C-alpha cells in the first residue's frame, strides 16, 4: 500500500522517517497489569490529571516515567545493501529491528519496507523440544514465513547445511546444544526474503559452522537482498557490511562507511570513563606524600579513549604529584577483567631514568604501554597505585580508577566468530608440518578409520 510514495527513489528497500519508540518505565518489565491496578488507575487518573493541571504540568506522559528506545531515527537503505547496526546495549538496535519486522509499532514517525521481510531475531524461534528435527524444520520454517512447498524443496539442503542427517528423526531435546543451534540457524539461513533482519545470531556454533553462516549471509547480500545486521562483533561488521549505522540512546550517532562508523563507535565515550582527573591536589586521592592527578587510557592517536582495538597497542597513564622531595616512589597499574579477575600488574620499577632513584618533588606521569594482540576482548578495569619503592607504604591505591573496553576487530581470531577463551589473547608463533602422509600409515598396516573409532 504505497501511501505517500512519490518522492521515494525506486531502488530503496527500507526507509525510516523520524521513527520513535517510547516505552513506559516500570511497564516494560512487568509488562502487564492486573485488573486491580487498572481499576485503581482508572479511579486515580482523573484525580492525578486534576492535580497535574493545578500544578501546571502536562497531564499525559509526565516525562520521568517514559523512555525513548528510539528517537527521530531516519535513514534509507538501498536494495542489496548490507548494513551493520552497531551500538551498546540499550542503544535501540533491537527495537529498530522489531519495528521493521512488524513485531511492534513505532510511537512516532513511520518505517517503510519493500519486499518480503525475514527476521532472525533469535536462533530456534518456533522450535519445539519434543518434536523431531524433521518436524521442527517444517515448523520453524512456517513460523519464519516459509511456505510448506518451499520448505519441502529446501529440506535436504537445510539438513545437509546443519550436518544432522543421522539425527533428523530424533526429538531435538536430545540434540547437543551445538546441533540444535546449527539446525535452527540452517532453517533461518535458507529463508530467502528480499529483506533480512539479523540480530546477533552469529555467536553460536563452532568455528567451521560460523564460517559457513557468514558465507551464507554474504551470498544473501550478493544476490541483491537487503540485510540489516545487528552485532557487537566489529570484525564481523567490518567484514560483512560496507555501511554501518551507529545507534546510541535511541538516536543515530553515525551513518556511513563501516570503517568510519566502527571507528566512531570505538572512540565514543563509555559511561565507565577511560579517563579520571583530579585537578585539585587537596581533593585528590592520596596522602601527604603522593596525590593522584589523572589516570587514563590513551589510544594510538594519543587521545584518551574508552575502547581500544584488540590489535593495537595503547597506553595507561598515571599522573601524580610527589609532594616530598627525594622520595623513592613506584607507580603500579593492576589490570582486571570483567569478572574482577586480576590479569596482571605492572610497575615502573625498571624504568631506566626514575625506576630505581629517589624522585624530586613535582608532577610525574608514568606511562605503561600494553601491546596489541595481548589482552582478550571485553571490559578491563584498572587500579592505579603509587607506593614506596620497597612496597612498604602505599600512598595511594585507587580501585577501579578507570575502565575501558577491548574491542574485537579480528586479528588473532581470523574467521572464527565465537567466544575466545582465556584471560589474554596473544598472537603466538605456530608451526604445523605434515610429518607423514596418510598413505604410508595405511601401507604400514593401520586403518586410519579403525584407529579413529
Amino acid at each position: 500500500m504505497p501511501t505517500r510514495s512519490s518522492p521515494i527513489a525506486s531502488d530503496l528497500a527500507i526507509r525510516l522517517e523520524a521513527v520513535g519508540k517510547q516505552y513506559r518505565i516500570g511497564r516494560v518489565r512487568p509488562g502487564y497489569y492486573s485488573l486491580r491496578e487498572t481499576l485503581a488507575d482508572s479511579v486515580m487518573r482523573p484525580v492525578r490529571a486534576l492535580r497535574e493541571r493545578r500544578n501546571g504540568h502536562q497531564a499525559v506522559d509526565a516525562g520521568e516515567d517514559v523512555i525513548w528506545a528510539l528517537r527521530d531515527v531516519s535513514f534509507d537503505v538501498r536494495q542489496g545493501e548490507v548494513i551493520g547496526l552497531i551500538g551498546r546495549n540499550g542503544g535501540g538496535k533491537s527495537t529498530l529491528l522489531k519495528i521493521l519486522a512488524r513485531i511492534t509499532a513505532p510511537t512516532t514517525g513511520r518505517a517503510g519496507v519493500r519486499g518480503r521481510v525475514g527476521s532472525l531475531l533469535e536462533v530456534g524461534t518456533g522450535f519445539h523440544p519434543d518434536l523431531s528435527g524433521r518436524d521442527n524444520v517444517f515448523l520453524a520454517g512456517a513460523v519464519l514465513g516459509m511456505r510448506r512447498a518451499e520448505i519441502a524443496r529446501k529440506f535436504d539442503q537445510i539438513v545437509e547445511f546443519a550436518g544432522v542427517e543421522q539425527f533428523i528423526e530424533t526429538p531435538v531435546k536430545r540434540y547437543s546444544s551445538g546441533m540444535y543451534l546449527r539446525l535452527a540457524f540452517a532453517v533461518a539461513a535458507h529463508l530467502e526474503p528480499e529483506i533480512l533482519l539479523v540480530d546477533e545470531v552469529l555467536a553460536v556454533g563452532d568455528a567451521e559452522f560460523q564460517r559457513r553462516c557468514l558465507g551464507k549471509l554474504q551470498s544473501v547480500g550478493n544476490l541483491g537482498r537487503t540485510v540489516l545486521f545487528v552485532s557487537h562483533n566489529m570484525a564481523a561488521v567490518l567484514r560483512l557490511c560496507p555501511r554501518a549505522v551507529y545507534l546510541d540512546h535511541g538516536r543515530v550517532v553515525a551513518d556511513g562507511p563501516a570503517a568510519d562508523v566502527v571507528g566512531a563507535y570505538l572512540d565514543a565515550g563509555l559511561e565507565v570513563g577511560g579517563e579520571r582527573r583530579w585537578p585539585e591536589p587537596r581533593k585528590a586521592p592520596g596522602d601527604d606524600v603522593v596525590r593522584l592527578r589523572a589516570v587514563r587510557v590513551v589510544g594510538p592517536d594519543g587521545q584518551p579513549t574508552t575502547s581500544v582495538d584488540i590489535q593495537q597497542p595503547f597506553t595507561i597513564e598515571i599522573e601524580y604529584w610527589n609532594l616530598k622531595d627525594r622520595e623513592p616512589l613506584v607507580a603500579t597499574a593492576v589490570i582486571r577483567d570483567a569478572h574482577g579477575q586480576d590479569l596482571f600488574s605492572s610497575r615502573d620499577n625498571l624504568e631506566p631514568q626514575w625506576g630505581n632513584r629517589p624522585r624530586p618533588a613535582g608532577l610525574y606521569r608514568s606511562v605503561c604501554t600494553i601491546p596489541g594482540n595481548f589482552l582478550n576482548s571485553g571490559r578491563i578495569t584498572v587500579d592505579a597505585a603509587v607506593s614506596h619503592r620497597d612496597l612498604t607504604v602505599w600512598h595511594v591505591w585507587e580501585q577501579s580508577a578507570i575502565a575501558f573496553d577491548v574491542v574485537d576487530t579480528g586479528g588473532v581470531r581470523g574467521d572464527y566468530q565465537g567466544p575466545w577463551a582465556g584471560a589474554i589473547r596473544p598472537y603466538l608463533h605456530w608451526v604445523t608440518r605434515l610429518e607423514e602422509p596418510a598413505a604410508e600409515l595405511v601401507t604400514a598396516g593401520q586403518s586410519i578409520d579403525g584407529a579413529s573409532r
Partner: protein
Amino acid sequence: MRWTAQTGPAGEALARRERSGGPSWVWIEPRRGWAPLDLRALWNYRELLHFLAWRDVKVRYKQAVLGGLWAILQPALTAAVLTIFLGRLAHVPSDGVPYPLFVYAGLIIWQLFSQALSQASSSVVTSSSLITKVYFPRLVIPLSSILVSLVDTAIASTLLLAMMVYYRVSITPAIVTLPIFLLLAVLAVVAVSSWLSALHVQYRDVRWLMPFLIQAWMFATPVMYPSSIVPDAWRPVFGLNPMVGAVEGFRWALLGQQPPSLLLLAVSSAVTLVVLIGGLYYFRRVEQTFADTI
C-alpha cells in the same frame, strides 16, 4: 537489476515480481485505536495456522501411555460419572433418549467449546516467545488451539457413533444440519476466546477466572440436563448463552428428539455474532501492543 541474475525458485519469484513492477511499500506506522480486521493477512498465514495446530496435536499426547485415547476417555469418564449420579440417582430427564447417550452427545460439543476456550484463552500468553520474535497475525495462535480441540472432538466422536449403534438410534434427516451446530459452537468459541486471549495479555486475572467461568458456563448450558426443564419465563435469558443453541441443535441433529426452538437458536446465533465481531475487532486493536505488554 541484479535480481534477474539469480537462479533457483526464489530467484524466479523475485524476477516475476520485478517484471510486474516490484514489490510495493508496506508502511509500519503508529497505530492507535480501531483497525480494519485484515482477514486477508490471516488467510495468507493459513499454513502457519495449520503447522501450529499440527505441532500441538503431535505434542499433546506424547509420553502419555494411552496417547490419543485420552480424547475419548475424558468425555467418556465424565459421561459415566454424570450417568451414575444424575441419570441413575437424581433421575434427571433426558428427552426420551438413554441418559448415557444424551449426556455423551452433549459433552462432545461442550468439551469442544470448553477445551478450546481454556486452551485458546491462555494461548497468546504461552506463545510469548513467538510473539516477541516473529510477525504474523496474532489471531493465528488462538485459532490453532481451537483447531486442536476439533481434532479431539473428531476422535471422541467415534465413541459417540458406537453408542448410537449400540442404542439403535436411527438417523433422521436432521443429521444434515449437524455442521451448522458445530459451526455455531466453533464461532462461539472463537468469539469468546478472541476476547479472553487478548485480555489475558494485559490482565493475568483471566488465568484465575477461567476454571470458574468454564464450570459455571457448563451449568448454564443444557449438557447434563435437557433445556425442557428450564421454565418458559427463563427461556429468553437462557438463549443468551450461545452454547445453548449449539448443544440443543447438535443433539437434535444426531438423536432426533424434539427440535430446538427457532427463537432460541436465533438468539444464540445473534449473540454469537455480536460477541464474535466485537471480539475480533478488540483482538485486532490490542494485538498491536502484544509484543510490548506481554
